[in-house]
């Protein structure tokens, strides 16, 4: 009971607090918070918004899982941004250059993406394990490097194709595309299934394997884990590489399900969204799924705010304050429960061995 409460209460508090903050901001700017919420919920039924939310949530879920794997070991993989973008770009290039039988073609693209993500995350992993370089610094710097690498790769004189004022990689033939589910109001990416499977795999890895136990143990206390026979260097490398491998998949739902190429205007910023969603979901597979859906809802429904003249930036305020307040809320609830625990123990101590105490006192 208490465990469920300590898991669910903080995010609930954080969302309520963030919503209250947004309501205040809306009232100050002269708009009605209830109307704003109303049109955002109403937007879900419009056009392809519901499907867009599911698709985006799947992407956010994959990046958040990547972040969560690092978080389990107190590793901040800020480089997810660069890992998924470079992986998507290279995978799209490879996918466009080769033609294979249907399923095989798609699998090759997925494997390439995973490998690129893993290799790109392997650099900070090795630096961290053998040279003690902070993964925060090295991954941020590698993000900048990956930007340059992508710009080089999609130049028209390397692998790019000029399309008007846009540049894209060579389109992937239908044999390499990942078929989706056409709902009539938009197509749900086939990769959504992969995202769900990844979540199940993440849960299994963490709770049912020795590796998962060692991962969590290293995160709780590195020294204790080392004393228990866990190879710290090996854990750092595996955790970061695994995180990068998962991150490598994040660009694929759109590349394989909609765009069939990587272009100049391919989306950015998922990596940072992933960190926020993992934080919100407390690294729990179900929590992350909830966080990803909430994030996607806020992102996709925000378009309706333009209709009633409310600046869409209110959603950014909401997302930012959710992340900040969820951190604060966990800490507040943790302290509150610690204090309650202390009081309970103190009460028990006062009650049971009363005789001893009186002798001492």
């Amino acid at each position: 009971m208490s465990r469920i409460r300590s898991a669910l209460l903080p995010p609930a508090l954080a969302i309520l607090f963030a919503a209250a903050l947004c309501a205040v901001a809306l009232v100050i700017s002269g708009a009605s918070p209830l109307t704003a919420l109303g049109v955002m919920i109403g937007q879900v039924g419009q056009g392809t918004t519901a499907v867009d939310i599911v698709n985006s949530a799947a992407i956010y879920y994959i990046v958040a899982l990547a972040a969560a794997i690092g978080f389990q070991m107190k590793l901040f993989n800020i480089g997810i941004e660069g890992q998924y973008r470079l992986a998507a770009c290279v995978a799209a290039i490879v996918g466009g250059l080769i033609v294979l039988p249907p399923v095989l073609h798609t699998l090759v693209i997925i494997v390439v993406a995973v490998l690129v993500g893993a290799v790109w995350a392997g650099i900070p992993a090795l630096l961290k394990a053998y040279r003690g370089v902070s993964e925060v610094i090295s991954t941020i710097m590698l993000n900048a490097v990956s930007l340059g690498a992508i710009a080089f790769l999609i130049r028209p004189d390397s692998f790019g194709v000029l399309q008007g004022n846009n540049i894209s990689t060579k389109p992937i033939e239908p044999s390499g595309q990942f078929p989706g589910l056409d709902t009539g109001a938009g197509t749900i990416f086939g990769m959504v299934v992969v995202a769900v499977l990844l979540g199940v795999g993440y849960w299994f890895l963490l709770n049912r394997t020795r590796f998962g136990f060692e991962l969590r143990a290293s995160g709780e206390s590195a020294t204790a884990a080392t004393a228990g026979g866990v190879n710290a260097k090996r854990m750092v490398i595996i955790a970061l590489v695994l995180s990068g491998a998962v991150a490598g998949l994040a660009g694929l739902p759109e590349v394989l399900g909609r765009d069939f190429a990587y272009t100049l205007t391919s989306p950015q910023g998922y990596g940072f969204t992933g960190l926020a969603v993992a934080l919100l979901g407390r690294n729990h597979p179900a929590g992350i799924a909830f966080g990803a859906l909430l994030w996607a809802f806020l992102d996709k429904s925000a378009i309706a705010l333009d209709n009633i003249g409310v600046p869409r930036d209110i959603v950014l305020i909401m997302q930012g304050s959710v992340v900040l307040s969820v951190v604060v809320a966990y800490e507040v609830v943790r302290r509150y429960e610690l204090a309650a625990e202390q009081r309970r123990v103190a009460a028990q101590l006062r009650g049971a061995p009363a005789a001893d105490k009186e002798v001492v006192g």
Partner: protein
Amino acid sequence: MRHRRGMAFAAAVLSSALVLAGCARDTGTPAAGGDAAGTECARNAAPAAAGGAAAPSAAPIAPNADASALRVGLAFDVGGRGDQSFNDSAYAGLERAVAELGLVQDNTREVAAATGESEDARVSRLRQLATEGFSPVVAVGFAYSESLTTVAAEFPDTQFAIVDSVVDLPNVTSLTFAAEQGSFLVGAAAAMRTTSCQIGFVGGVEVPLIQAFEAGFVQGAKAVAPDVEVDVDYISPAGDFSGFNDPARGTEVARGQLDSGADVVYHAAGGSGQGVFEAVAAATTAEAPKYAIGVDSDQFNTVAAPTNEVIMTSMLKRVDVAVFNFINAVAAGDTSVLPQTFDLSVDGVGYSTTGGGVDDLVADLDAYKAAIINGDITVSSTP
């Protein structure tokens, strides 16, 4: 020798005046023009305008129509209103339609894009405008190419326009600009003005669209002074659109060029341009003046004083003219009157004279302009 743009000259008078202006090139350089660096920079004479030189066409593309029944949707690119450049220029076109065509302000809607957003966000934005009955819908920026292709096919009865891209559908009007032609003219102006024989180009993001600005600028500069050195730098690489909205890095890049000897810097970097202007304003002195060249809008007017004093001219890319004329054409029911490309011949691109920074160069610049319009000079859009 000072002539105002827009005045009509007899061709013969014009050409002889221009030849004289070209020969007397040294008088065009400012006080410091007599120093060693200045004399090293050999300059060509401006082209003599051939007989029947095209006069700048100030005439409207079509007579004003009544747009009071239209509901106009405007989907901005990243940055949205307030970028003092590209998006604001599109909005200015809408404002002009409200003022002159009877378009009702309440019947217009503007929606803005978010940085790094996904394709489905762009599709939803356009679809929503179309669903609510807005027609025409103007998509500002080439990022909308794919999404507009999707949505325009779904709404065949809605009129669409896209800025900076070509979408080949019957209900889509493509509003493209010959940015390289306008950039050619400001490149020529920069080469006429420089005393160090070194000028700079600061691009926002290294994408084909901005490379056209670079290409035109370099060609214009080399046409005037074949030996001029042009520093070309981009703030961010292709795919990272932050370079259009990062004044701090604009300052750094421009300062690097100024430090290495450039004394005229042209930017095509959207919101980052403010940083470029500040770098030039900080480096300029009475003995060694430095100049900046703005882009898209007449930035002497949009940038606050005293920073704007360093802006000698701006390359005008008249998105406002294109948007206004498109709305007008839709109101009149015939979009076929619109030019294929908004170029120098329809004043779709050009240069500004506000602030008087190029008053002494106008005659030469208009000669180059006439030469481009009548085909004597062809400006390539790739560097």
